């Protein structure tokens, strides 16, 4: 009788423990309760329950702890301070898969807040334990372990290096091949986080054959997976020419261009980021992308999206045009300049405008043909306006001034230059006048146009210091025209005429 009674006591205690832990786990899933749970001292309560005999209580306690730590970094720090991590790591090796999932969840929740917490996780051997989890059969365990490793590696290069040293990368590449979609996503995202820091880490990822598998997944219909795949490929290719070439050799390009019409906007953004990272290294790589029709797709993408999503596409156009004048001509042919003009007028953020101004400068500075394309899109007055605007940030002003100067130095399209004679600061004016002085001596129709449009008049009104470059150019232009015309347009000529009239005595 008393034996059953005693056993009943223990069973009751176990039931109440289970109930407590389950309720805490449920409460912890809602953010508003967490404050109160913390004040009630839930951390110290959960800690002994994690060492409980019954496995399901352990698992639920770990799950509750994970949810708490996920929510705020104070709680995560409390987890670290209470020395829960070492016992968690220790038991990771021995327990069943639900416990492993919950423990990996706790490690992830702790590591995500800051590099110091991740360092604490690494210091108690968390990384090795997680890598062991990656060898399990159960996909849920692998996903939790990969996610935790991803959060650890995200913070800085040292932590990524410790993840790589534990041998995580080959296992992650194997995870990429698993059929479960969530596991593939997480594996791709972790590889992306590892390879983003330094070229050596990216090289390690590439050496395990990641690129081929990532390339195969490009045509997968799942949007989130594609986001991560493109992000991983762009982080790999951004470091050096050889890595970018390896990414290109995987023949992703005609397929990736098709993904530029994906309904998910982050997929499109990541594709353009990948293109930008590849294009910025050498002209040959840019040539590959231009040849498979990437330009047209990117420019259409620019037309369809707004805001910060445009930035990688704009920078990609700038990088392509910067390499050579052939590529810049390709950008112009693909109707890039009107699109960039639209971007400039529609966007309000200064850093996007600065990037657009830079790209325009890169396109226009090669030859007079390119400068003419820029001038006919009425971009020169816009750039001037950006430069003169007092509200523009310094970066924007500097970039628009540089772009304006570089385009002006090659521009021979006079109708485009005319509006720039009015209300410009003298450092821009001297370039404009210089261009006029180069073209006018040779072209009579241009001279006629210059006079009739009022340009000569405006020119006379410019006051320049004698002997300065500006004065020399003005003199050069004046010498292209007959003296009477120059005198006619010089300011104060009407007074001179009237004076002559007064002094005139009819014979």
């Amino acid at each position, binding site marked *: 009788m008393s034996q059953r009674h005693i056993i009943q006591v223990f069973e009751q205690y176990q039931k109440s423990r289970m109930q407590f832990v389950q309720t805490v786990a449920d409460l912890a899933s809602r953010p508003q309760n967490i404050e109160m749970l913390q004040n009630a001292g839930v951390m110290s309560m959960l800690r002994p329950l994690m060492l409980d005999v019954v496995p399901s209580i352990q698992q639920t306690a770990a799950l509750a702890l994970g949810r708490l730590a996920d929510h705020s970094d104070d709680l995560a720090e409390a987890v670290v301070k209470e020395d829960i991590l070492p016992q968690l790591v220790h038991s990771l090796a021995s327990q069943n898969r639900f416990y492993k999932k919950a423990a990996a969840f706790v490690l992830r929740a702790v590591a995500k807040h800051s590099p110091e917490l991740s360092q604490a996780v690494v210091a108690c051997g968390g990384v090795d334990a997680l890598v062991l989890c990656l060898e399990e059969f159960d996909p849920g365990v692998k996903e939790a372990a990969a996610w935790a490793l991803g959060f650890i590696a995200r913070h800085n290069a040292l932590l990524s290096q410790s993840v790589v040293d534990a041998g995580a990368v080959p296992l992650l590449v194997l995870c990429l091949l698993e059929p479960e979609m969530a596991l593939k996503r997480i594996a791709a995202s972790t590889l992306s986080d590892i390879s983003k820091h330094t070229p050596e880490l990216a090289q390690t990822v590439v050496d395990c054959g990641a690129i081929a598998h990532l390339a195969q997944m490009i045509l997968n219909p799942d949007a989130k997976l594609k986001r991560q795949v493109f992000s991983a490929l762009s982080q790999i290719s951004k470091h050096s020419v050889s890595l970018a070439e390896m990414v290109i050799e995987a023949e992703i390009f005609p397929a990736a*261009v098709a993904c530029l019409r994906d309904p998910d906007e982050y997929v499109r953004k990541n594709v353009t980021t990948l293109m930008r990272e590849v294009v910025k290294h050498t002209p040959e790589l840019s040539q590959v992308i231009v*040849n498979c*029709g990437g330009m*047209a*797709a990117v420019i*259409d993408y620019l037309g369809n999206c707004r805001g910060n999503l445009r930035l990688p596409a704009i920078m990609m156009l700038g990088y392509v045009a910067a390499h050579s004048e052939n590529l810049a001509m*390709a950008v112009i042919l693909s109707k890039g300049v009107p699109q960039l003009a639209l971007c400039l007028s529609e966007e309000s953020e200064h850093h996007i405008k600065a990037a657009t101004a830079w790209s325009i400068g890169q396109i226009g500075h090669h030859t007079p043909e390119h400068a003419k394309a820029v001038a006919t899109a009425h971009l020169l007055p816009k750039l001037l306006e950006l430069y003169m605007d007092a509200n523009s940030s310094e970066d924007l002003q500097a970039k628009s001034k540089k772009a304006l100067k570089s385009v002006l130095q090659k521009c021979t399209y006079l109708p485009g230059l005319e509006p720039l004679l009015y209300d410009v600061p003298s450092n821009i004016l001297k370039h404009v006048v210089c261009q006029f002085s180069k073209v006018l001596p040779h072209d009579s129709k241009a001279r006629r146009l210059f006079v009739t449009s009022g340009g000569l008049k405006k020119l006379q009104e410019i006051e320049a210091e004698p002997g300065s470059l500006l004065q020399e150019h003005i003199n050069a232009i004046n010498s292209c025209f007959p003296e009477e015309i120059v005198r006619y347009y010089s300011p104060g000529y009407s007074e001179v005429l009237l004076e002559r009239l007064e002094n005139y005595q009819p014979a």
Partner: protein
Amino acid sequence: DMAELLKIKSEAEDFQSEYFYRNSQAEEKRQKENQAATQIQSWFRACKVRAYFSHLHKKAVIIQKIWRGFTARARFRQMVKAAYFIMKMNFYEEMAVRIQRRWRGFFVRKYIHNFYARKSYLEGLFRKNELVRRELDELEELQKRERDCLEMVKEQTAKVYQAYRLHHLLSTKQCPGVFNSPFRSAPHEMEQLLRQVKYQAPTRLAPGGRACLLGMPGPAAPSFSGTLGSPWIKTTQTRCSSRPILPPIGSKKQQVRW
């Protein structure tokens, strides 16, 4: 005798004095005469030597003249050869420059700055861009249509499931159902669905074991593929299952309504 002796003595004395006088004179003049003799001899020797030198000189001049002429002519011949060589080289170089000029112009125009290649490349690029744009548009269109199709299938399945759950709202002869209000000109589509839904009493057998083909005309699905996976819609055709499905034991007689 004495006089001759005296004369001889005086002559001897005179002779002595003369002899002494002449010796002393000679002594005095010896220096001068010696000097004079030396001078004459030296002058004569000098003349001899000068004559010899001038002879030698003339001969040396002749030799040098001949030698210089020889050397100069040799040098001149050399200079002529060199000048000829230089002229030849200039000619060759000029010809080589012409060849190189032509070649470089050709090479640059063909391989480095090929205008026509660039033009055709840009044209090709333009066409390729157009092509890519069109293909991407088509692809997008296709994908959009697929997605819309899937959406519609999902919606329709959901509606049919709802009708299955709401089968009890079907209107009877006595009492019009919720969806068949007398104030409406025609019954609501839910009413049509309800009429078409076949009620099955819940059996322990999973309804997925019954393979039913559906020929239901979807009311608002024009581009339907027509295969709904729902097992609840009545068929106008006979059920073509691979094996005969036995009715569940103990089920009530099912009401089949149109």
